[in-house]
């Protein structure tokens, strides 16, 4: 069926609405990356198998829906029953029968599966009330976790493609751009460039054709927002891109997805095929003059390909080396033609901005960073997961109110934002408001939205070493300061981790950083020293402990620590069996000892000991 007019789209939406009204109860099963690792696919199957055989009022086999990431990964696998919003967490396959028989048939709540706040012991029945969710505001993620990403009807029934219909009905391209500009939307891929400005430049460019690209490379380690959008709500990315194509006059676009995200590719491809089938992509979209089609381009596992000019080369089948941008890529982009490149989340915001208007969007967040931002919370934090919050929220609120604080109630040490180009912020910066400019002013950056929380058992010198190692591997090698400079910086950093660094070398590292920043072509090199610079700015005492006292306060750097078994040891043999160096001896139920000479400090014993009987000295 081709939807060849806007009237038909509206009619279709009404039809789906009527049909879906018949399904009173909905059972949402999260198949996001976290829940899937916990076996949620098996839970889904079990629901379908049992419900096929049972007749329950208001519950059909179609009531069971698979969704993208619902957000609260730490409590996965989760099952949500709508419209009541009952939230069952840590569900296993064996619970399914119970859920069907008790909750679906009799309306009883199974208390042991509900979420219990570990701090207050309060039990929550409904997911919207849980503190993790209550503080959030979802725009880009509005459908993720709520709809079945494979069903275009699910997207449409929730208002999908109505923004597209709205512009085709009565907005000129420059009016669309005007709305985007007025909304204040800034690119969510890292740099925070004004989206409206980018679109205007491309729209005005005289050369033809114009291209629209979506950056789904998400190379920052520790970030998974874009993955969840592409997997959980692919049509919103498509709709955002089609609107952009209309605004800048483009007929051809690409979505660049990193190869580590196979499910994103599958779901996007399904969305593209469906959209084409129904006449939402291709020639004469919704019966108008708009013609635009999309292809997926798969990355090859190179971080630098997230950079705009490298990405464009990669899409063109070349090696993804950045080029000097005397002329910006919006004018000379893919195949040297005018090109708009935006991030996945940026595009996901567009339909809502068009639908609800620029003023509505601009009223959210702060003056210069409008709207919301999606973050992935990971690291040593209780509530790991995917969140979306208004800009301007305090770091503290994200980490404690939403994130629930630090694992095992240990001490917070730092939060890393912005990936390898960003930095680490210490405890006294927790009052900072999260927006593009505040984070940048404080030596970090917004980045694409990865937030990795670190506790007192993390060594900041090691974190810096980790990122430098990452960048040495990922530098494309074109510029000497980046290729050789980062290599030397990493080497000096490694020396510090081994307790062999000197104070002069610390100074040398700071100088070298300046050279790398000023002499590199692309963002990778220009921001490469950031993890080092931000850690030495806020955690100089840790560097000094390594250099002056050969100590690692975080207890991480292997050359500077020893493991010792204390009197609490009950001789459970767990550490002994895991020690690959056979350095641990001791009888069952008797205190063990570690041979310091044999021990290679891998820390496996420390990780498996359940009663804290191993000390790091």
């Amino acid at each position, binding site marked *: 069926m081709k939807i060849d007019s806007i009237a038909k789209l509206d009619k279709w939406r009404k039809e789906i609405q009527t049909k879906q009204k018949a399904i009173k109860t909905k059972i949402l099963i999260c198949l996001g*990356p*976290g829940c*899937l*690792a*916990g076996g949620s696919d098996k839970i889904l199957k079990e629901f379908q198998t049992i419900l096929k055989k049972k007749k329950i009022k208001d519950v059909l086999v179609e009531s069971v829906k698979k969704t993208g990431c619902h957000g609260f*990964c730490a409590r996965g696998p989760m099952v949500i029953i709508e419209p009541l919003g009952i939230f069952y967490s840590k569900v296993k396959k064996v619970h399914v029968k119970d859920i069907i028989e008790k909750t679906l048939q009799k309306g009883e709540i199974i208390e042991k599966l509900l979420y219990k706040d570990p701090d207050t012991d309060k039990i929550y029945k409904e997911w919207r009330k849980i503190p993790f969710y209550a503080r959030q505001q979802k725009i880009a993620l509005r459908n993720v976790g709520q709809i079945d990403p494979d069903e275009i009807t699910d997207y449409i029934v929730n208002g999908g493609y109505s923004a597209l219909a709205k512009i085709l009905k009565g907005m000129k391209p420059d009016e669309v751009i005007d709305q985007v500009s007025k909304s204040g939307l800034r690119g969510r891929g890292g740099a925070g460039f004004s989206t409206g400005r980018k679109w205007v430049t491309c729209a005005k460019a005289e050369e033809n054709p114009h291209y629209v690209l979506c950056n789904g490379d*998400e*190379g*920052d*380690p*520790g*970030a*998974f927002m874009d*993955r*969840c959008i592409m997997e959980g709500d692919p049509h919103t990315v498509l709709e955002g891109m089609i609107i952009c194509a209309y605004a800048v006059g483009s007929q051809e676009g690409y979505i660049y997805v990193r*190869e*580590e*995200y*196979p499910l994103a590719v599958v779901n996007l491809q399904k969305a593209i095929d469906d959209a084409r089938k129904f006449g939402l992509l291709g020639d004469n979209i919704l019966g108008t003059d708009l013609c635009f089609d999309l292809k997926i381009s*798969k*990355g*090859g*596992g*190179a*971080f630098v390909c997230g950079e705009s000019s490298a990405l464009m080369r*990669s899409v*063109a*089948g*070349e*090696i*993804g*080396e950045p080029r000097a941008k005397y002329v910006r890529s919006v004018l000379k982009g893919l195949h040297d033609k005018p090109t708009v490149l935006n991030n996945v989340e940026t595009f996901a915001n567009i339909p809502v901005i068009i639908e609800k208007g620029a003023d509505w969007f601009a009223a959210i967040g702060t003056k210069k960073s409008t709207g919301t931002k999606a973050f*992935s*919370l*990971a*690291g*040593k934090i209780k509530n*790991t*997961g*995917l969140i979306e919050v208004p800009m301007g929220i305090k770091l503290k609120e994200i980490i404690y109110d939403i994130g629930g604080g630090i694992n095992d109630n240990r001490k917070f040490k730092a939060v890393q934002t912005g*990936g390898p180009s960003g930095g680490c912020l210490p405890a006294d910066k927790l009052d900072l408001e999260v927006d593009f400019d505040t984070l940048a002013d404080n030596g970090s950056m917004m980045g694409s939205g*990865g937030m*990795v929380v*670190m506790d007192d058992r*993390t060594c900041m010198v090691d*974190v810096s070493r*980790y*990122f430098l190692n*990452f960048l040495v591997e*990922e530098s*494309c090698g074109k510029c000497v300061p980046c290729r050789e400079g980062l290599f030397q910086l990493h080497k000096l950093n490694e020396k510090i981790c081994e307790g062999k660094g000197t104070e002069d070398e610390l100074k040398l590292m700071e100088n070298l950083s300046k050279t790398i920043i000023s002499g590199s072509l692309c963002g990778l090199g220009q921001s490469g020293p950031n993890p080092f610079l931000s850690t030495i700015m806020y955690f100089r005492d840790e560097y000094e402990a390594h250099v002056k006292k050969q100590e690692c306060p975080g207890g991480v750097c292997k050359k500077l620590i020893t493991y010792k078994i204390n009197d609490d040891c009950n001789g459970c043999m*767990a550490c002994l*069996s*895991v020690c*690959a160096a056979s350095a641990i001896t001791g009888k069952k139920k008797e205190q063990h000892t570690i041979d310091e000479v044999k021990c290679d400090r*891998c*820390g*496996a014993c420390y*990780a*498996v000991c359940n009663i804290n009987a191993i000390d790091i000295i």
Partner: protein
Amino acid sequence: MIIDSNKIQKVIDDSPQDKKQLIMILQNIQLEFHYLPKESIGLVSEYLGMPQSTVYSAATFYKSFSLVPRGENIIKVCKGTACHIKGADLIIDQLYAGIGIKPGQTTKDMKYTIEVVNCVGACAMAPVMIVNDKYFGEVKCNRATKLVKKG
């Protein structure tokens, strides 16, 4: 390992003869053979009419391509930021003790290859290990080898 060049040629012939598709063609070959056999560089260069050096540079630039044969089972250990601070190195150490190879290596019987990846987007479950596309989250280091053998 000997691979029939005709088989490689077949994969190539099924792909569009377009220089822009270089990376896609290499991806297709790798999908079939789990690595890029030596012959494929020459065959692709002939097919697309571009120098072997260009094909070779693409094959070495992108991390996902392997120029050496890989084992039947691919073990990917995530070393993204979240996994790093939650003990990804411990998994690598334990796998070395358990199956005797380090990242980048393949067991002699061609059964296992270990690779390190930088974040697979499941950071909430760190540390993460993937065995042939099956994700394992919150991996306890002492269970790593067992999980691998179970598959």
